[in-house]
């Protein structure tokens, strides 16, 4: 029985495969560390950075614990502006509402900008099954859509593909020049293709980085301008936004807008920070769909409610040494890394408990988080709950029981430590067999003849 089978999880198996390709794995780690470094430069460049983090955290704690008031205010103002506001209690209802709106407007094709919420609700396959063509317009999302893959990172979804992967994909799907894999050329090919989609789509959907309660604005931040193109040509705009994205007012928005891109990509701002209050005069009224899908339950979770502060910047993934060395596809939830581990557990403890051990508790994640979500502390707390969920690893449980017994009994502990140095004599093939997972990556340590508690007597003389 190999140790690998005994203690492994979905994540550890996938990570092992990921690391087999050392060239790729090193590139992946270096790429995300570079983004983390760019974030660092942004942080070091603002004397008020730590003050902003603290304010952002406090604004979020206030807002999400008064969210019902702010949601009501947001909806009232959005409706005053002439928008139609829908409330979806779960993913299925969200998909039904969106389909209903599209059907009412005879929509055949919808372009959309990036929305992790629509990914969460699995909206695209739902709409496709109902005969509506959905075209992703964020370049990274479009690439993985054409390839039939899921995003591997929430901000850089196609990061796992190199320019040859994309070049070959575009040759096949977009008719690009064979062998021309230059990223500038490929971006231009996508531009022309997507331009045609924007011009011929019947509807455009955006997500929402923020919703402003005081004014009813939906705020969308992009570098590409695809949210703005999606809403400037088609005559119908649907905005999808999770409950927790609503914030009180513009003074609060200033704090978050300044941090979102600095934290996530190391830029001082996204190219576009767009405020949508109502549809343009030549279009149908704007629809806004507010989505619950578990959020109204999560706020009641005593250890994990602060996960609702998250603004989906991605900086926790970039800094996570485990994410960098295992990639987004190693995690069972569609959002990877530290926030993904936590949100996955809130979503489904049975399906996603395997991710909880994909962490060394180094706490880098919560030290970069612009809104101070206590990501690492929460992972520690999820671990304490696995037993009650019935998802604790039985081997781990047994090992801990064993350790407890030894540490709890000084007699046994002293005997064990006195005999420990005999382990030095265990022949290597035996010591390094599959039952000893430590020996997979390490040479066994030497046990000195006498433990400290035997040496102290001589020192005290």
């Amino acid at each position, binding site marked *: 029985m190999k140790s690998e089978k005994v203690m492994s999880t979905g994540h550890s198996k996938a990570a092992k495969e990921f690391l087999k390709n050392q060239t790729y794995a090193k590139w992946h780690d270096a790429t995300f560390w*570079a983004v983390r470094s760019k974030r660092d430069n942004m942080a070091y460049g603002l*004397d*008020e950075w730590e*003050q902003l983090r603290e*304010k952002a955290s*406090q*604004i979020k*704690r*206030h807002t999400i*614990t008064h969210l*019902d008031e702010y*949601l*009501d205010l947001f909806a009232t103002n959005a409706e005053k502006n002439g928008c139609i506001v829908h*409330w979806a*209690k779960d993913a299925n*209802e969200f998909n039904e509402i969106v389909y209903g709106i599209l059907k009412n407007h005879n929509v055949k094709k919808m372009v959309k900008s990036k929305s992790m919420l629509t990914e969460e609700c699995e909206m695209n396959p739902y709409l496709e099954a109902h005969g509506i063509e959905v075209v992703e*317009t964020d370049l*990274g999302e479009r690439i993985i859509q054409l390839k039939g893959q899921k995003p591997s990172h929430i901000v*850089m*979804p*196609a*990061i796992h593909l*190199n320019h040859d992967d*994309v070049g070959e994909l575009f040759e096949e799907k977009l008719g690009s020049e064979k062998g021309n894999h230059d*990223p500038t050329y490929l*971006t*231009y090919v996508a531009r022309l293709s*997507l*331009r045609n989609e924007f011009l011929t789509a019947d509807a455009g959907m955006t997500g929402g980085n923020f919703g402003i309660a005081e004014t009813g604005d939906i705020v969308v931040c992009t*570098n*590409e*301008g*695809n949210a*703005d*193109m999606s809403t*400037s040509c088609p005559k119908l705009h649907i905005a999808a936004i999770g409950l927790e994205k609503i914030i*009180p007012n*513009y*003074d609060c928005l*200033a704090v978050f*807008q300044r941090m979102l891109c600095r934290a996530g990509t190391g*830029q*001082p*701002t*996204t*190219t*576009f*920070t*767009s*405020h949508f*209050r*109502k*549809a*343009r*005069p*030549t279009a149908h009224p704007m629809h806004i769909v507010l989505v619950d899908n578990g959020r*109204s*339950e999560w*706020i*009641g979770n005593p250890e994990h409610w602060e996960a609702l502060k998250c603004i989906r910047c991605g900086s926790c993934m970039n800094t996570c040494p485990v994410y960098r060395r295992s990639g987004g596809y190693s995690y069972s939830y569609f959002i990877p890394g530290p926030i993904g581990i936590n949100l996955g557990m809130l979503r489904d403890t049975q399906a996603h408990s395997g991710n909880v051990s994909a962490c060394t508790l180094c706490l880098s994640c919560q030290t970069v988080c612009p809104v101070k979500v206590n990501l690492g502390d929460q992972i520690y707390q999820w671990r304490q709950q696995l037993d009650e969920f019935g998802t604790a690893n039985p081997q781990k449980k047994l090992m801990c029981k064993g350790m407890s017994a030894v540490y709890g009994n000084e007699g046994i502990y002293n005997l064990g430590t006195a005999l420990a140095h005999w382990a030095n004599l265990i022949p290597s093939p035996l010591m390094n067999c599959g039952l000893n997972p430590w020996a997979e990556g390490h040479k066994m340590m030497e046990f000195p003849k006498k433990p400290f508690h035997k040496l102290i007597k001589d020192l005290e003389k």
Partner: protein
Amino acid sequence: MSNKEDILKRYRANVREMYDMPDLSDIAAITYGDPLVQFIKMTESVGGHVIEVKEGQDINTLVREMYPDAKEIASNLPEVTIATRNPDTVGRARDLNGTDVGIIRGMFGVAENACVWIPQTMKEKAVMFISENLVILLPKSQIVNNMHEAYKRIEFDETYDGYGTFISGPSKTADIAQVLVMGAQAARSATILLLPE
């Protein structure tokens, strides 16, 4: 009970401890000795261009010089005489496709990140994104230090009051192998013409 009431009721019932809104007036946000200098520096760093228009200089001549090969120029601004298309009078938004230069007005700039606040002031806002090249007229005295100051003064147009945006440089992406490319789905270049007072 409606979905809205259901959701709000459930949420309210589940909230445990409540927290107060912090005071935001003591945020020591960055300011610059000369915000205009910083704005220009930041605009160049995000891939935009800045041209300081001289007193009496005709922007139409200037734009012609910048884009000698431009065939289609879109603008609804009264001072722009070289426009071949008008976003106020086009039949459909998509008719603006193929615009070489779109000329629009910005209200004020933000030094810390080269953002320019641009409320929608035309019937079809597509002109701001569909144009290959974007030219933004900006009064050079209207530069604020940071987004806190910016968000205290954003305004929407009286007529086209449904949309406004901050634009910082040209559209861009690094989604293919992390190589930065200017001109993703919107303008491939952005030039700020700083107008004298």
